[in-house]
């Protein structure tokens, strides 16, 4: 008996000895390598393909359907980053250069048309100096999917191609720059792995930040669903306020973002935020697992685009149930999980004065 106890304490000591990192630092490092860096790299690759495809499409070597495929890839990779928006891409409103949403006044259409009228021979430099409204995927989507445009017409294709190519280059360069800032010495990845650093005083701050962006992305998914459902407009559906309504990509984007949020929770190797919960918090972990599963299944069960679902009662009911499911998931993580982890996710940003 004594012997067993002794071995157990020695084992304990040994574990403490080799576990230089506290659990928060371990999770932050594991998520950086297993979830964040891979997602940012995928996004960079998707933008590389977008730029290459724009060139190929405009040179006539691929068709419109391939162009749309490349766009959807880039859009989905960007949606996946929503719960992972810590660091460089979350700062200086660089995200605006990627997507312009909400677009209540259809600025994307107006500004794309105005820009091409002023600069028919648009260059990449012209685009860098233009408004963020026309620099990103939302403008790209307008060109490829807007019901009033038809890029199968040669003259239309000639008109819009310089902008497609410029946006492709812009997105590729932006992604390269951001990934560079992640991978640089003392860059974002290192700041999530070695503490203290100029950004985080300790690993708890990194975990708090990861949880904050995850929770705020879940809140963002509610907003992206709630706006077209008319939750801010007396229940009157607003299909054109949906994210990615032109490409009918709203629900695919929700799925991509939800998958990333869940990956942050589980980790790529059971080493995510969930692993910070103790055995006494197993019940909470189960409820969060179940909430992810519920939201995921409800989303997967929707077999029509958001715009179509908004048109009938059954569709609206299903969307309302999805919204409620997202809301439960959001609240569970925002309140119960944050509390269980003793992590503060801040309030001055959205509840200041």
């Amino acid at each position, binding site marked *: 008996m004594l012997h067993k106890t002794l071995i157990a304490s020695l084992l304990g000591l040994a574990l403490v000895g080799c576990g230089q990192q506290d659990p928060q630092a371990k999770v932050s490092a594991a998520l950086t390598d297993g979830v964040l860096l891979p997602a940012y790299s995928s996004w960079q690759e998707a933008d590389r393909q977008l730029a290459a495809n724009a060139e190929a499409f405009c040179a006539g070597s691929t068709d419109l359907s391939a162009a749309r495929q490349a766009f959807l890839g880039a859009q989905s990779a960007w949606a996946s980053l929503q719960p992972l928006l810590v660091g460089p891409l979350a700062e200086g409103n660089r995200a605006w250069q990627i997507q312009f949403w909400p677009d209540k006044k259809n600025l994307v259409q107006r500004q794309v048309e105005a820009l091409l009228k002023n600069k028919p021979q648009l260059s990449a430099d012209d685009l860098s100096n233009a408004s963020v409204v026309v620099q990103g995927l939302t403008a790209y989507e307008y060109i490829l999917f807007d019901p009033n445009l038809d890029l199968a017409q040669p003259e239309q294709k000639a008109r819009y191609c310089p902008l497609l190519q410029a946006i492709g280059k812009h997105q590729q360069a932006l992604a390269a720059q951001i990934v560079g800032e992640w991978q640089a010495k003392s860059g974002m990845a290192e700041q999530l792995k070695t503490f203290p650093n100029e950004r985080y005083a300790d690993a708890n*701050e990194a975990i708090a*930040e990861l949880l904050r962006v995850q929770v705020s992305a879940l809140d963002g998914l509610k907003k992206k669903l709630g706006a077209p459902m008319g939750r801010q407009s007396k229940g009157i559906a607003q299909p054109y306020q949906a994210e990615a309504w032109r490409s009918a990509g709203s629900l695919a984007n929700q799925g991509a973002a939800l998958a990333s949020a869940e990956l942050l929770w589980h980790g790529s190797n059971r080493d995510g935020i969930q692993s910070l919960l103790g055995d006494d918090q197993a019940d909470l972990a189960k409820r969060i697992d179940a909430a992810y599963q519920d939201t995921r299944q409800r989303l997967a069960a929707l077999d029509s685009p958001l715009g179509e679902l908004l048109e009938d009662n059954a569709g609206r009911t299903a969307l309302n149930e999805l919204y409620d499911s997202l809301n439960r998931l959001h609240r569970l993580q925002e309140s119960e999980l944050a509390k269980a982890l003793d992590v503060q996710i*801040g309030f001055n940003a959205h509840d200041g*004065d």
Partner: protein
Amino acid sequence: MQRRAFLGLSAAAASLAAAGAFGGWTLFGPSGQPLLLSARDDGDGNHYAVGYRLDGQRAFATPVNERCHDVVPHPALPMALFVGRRPSTESYLIDTRDGRLLQTLSSPAGRHFNGHAVFHKGGEWLYTTENDTTEPGRGVIGVYRLQGEQLLRDGEHSSHGVGPHQLLWMPDGETLVVANGGIRTEAESRVEMNLDAMQASLVLIRRDGSLVSQEYLADQQNSIRHLAVARDGTVVSGQQYMGDLHDQVPLLAIKRPGQPFQPFPLGETQRVAMNQYTASVAIHDELRLLALTAPRGNRFFIWDLDSAQVRLDVPLPDCAGVGAVAEGFVVTSGQGRCRLYDCRGEHIVTNALQLPAGLWDNHLRLA
């Protein structure tokens, strides 16, 4: 009671003399550490009025009914008013030695507090910003008189604008500078009712309520909210813009002595990073530095007050209150640990303070 007050006064007066001036930075308490006063929550959403020494020692954490905003230390006595956040009708007068609640100050019928107040240098009078809910939005400067350990309503003045937010003293200690935010809200509500007809203004008024000057910014939806005043009379204001996220509007403005109120020359990188929202502003008189928290952009900034050169531009999630101390600035956060930025050398050095992390509310005061 009188003896205690007298002792408190003389001790505070001695340290005031040592520091040269109050409203500046160094008021060292018994432990040689400034006392950080702030509103703070716990993880369950309960509200507290707290005081901590910068070394992490807790002086007090007094539960209060309503969420507070700014804190107003008395210029001589060990007490401070924790001002109710709008549209609260309660503020709390607290003994800063032990956290004892001396008085729950209620605003009169038809008025609510707007989160900010100041004690007159003589210590007898307190001025608050309030909203007249019988004529919603009409800005009021509430006047209270301290008798013993109780503040009593004595009267009120017009703030000469709508939705007054922060107010501070000019260096003469007799002229108030008031940020009229311009946003009309109603009783028990924070909903903006007049975004298309806002008119924010920066006003200087005398203690009798008479207007000295009133100035405006160009952008109609740019709400002037928070202030800092330098010893030479320079006033800096931080704005919150209610319009589009992509509009380019000045989020910091400055009124140098003898000059008109005008945008502070802000780099576009810094302006964009603020997400149209500034929170607390502070000035370091000795180092001539200006500091600002931008919690929506999760960013903290320091500029040279005279040259407008950026000295610091760093991420600081949910940063909240900022105040000047001898070394530089102390900053709190709703999310992470509090920081001390030592600004005395060529390079600003960051230190994480041994204070509890997160849940710190918008403003802090050092006493």
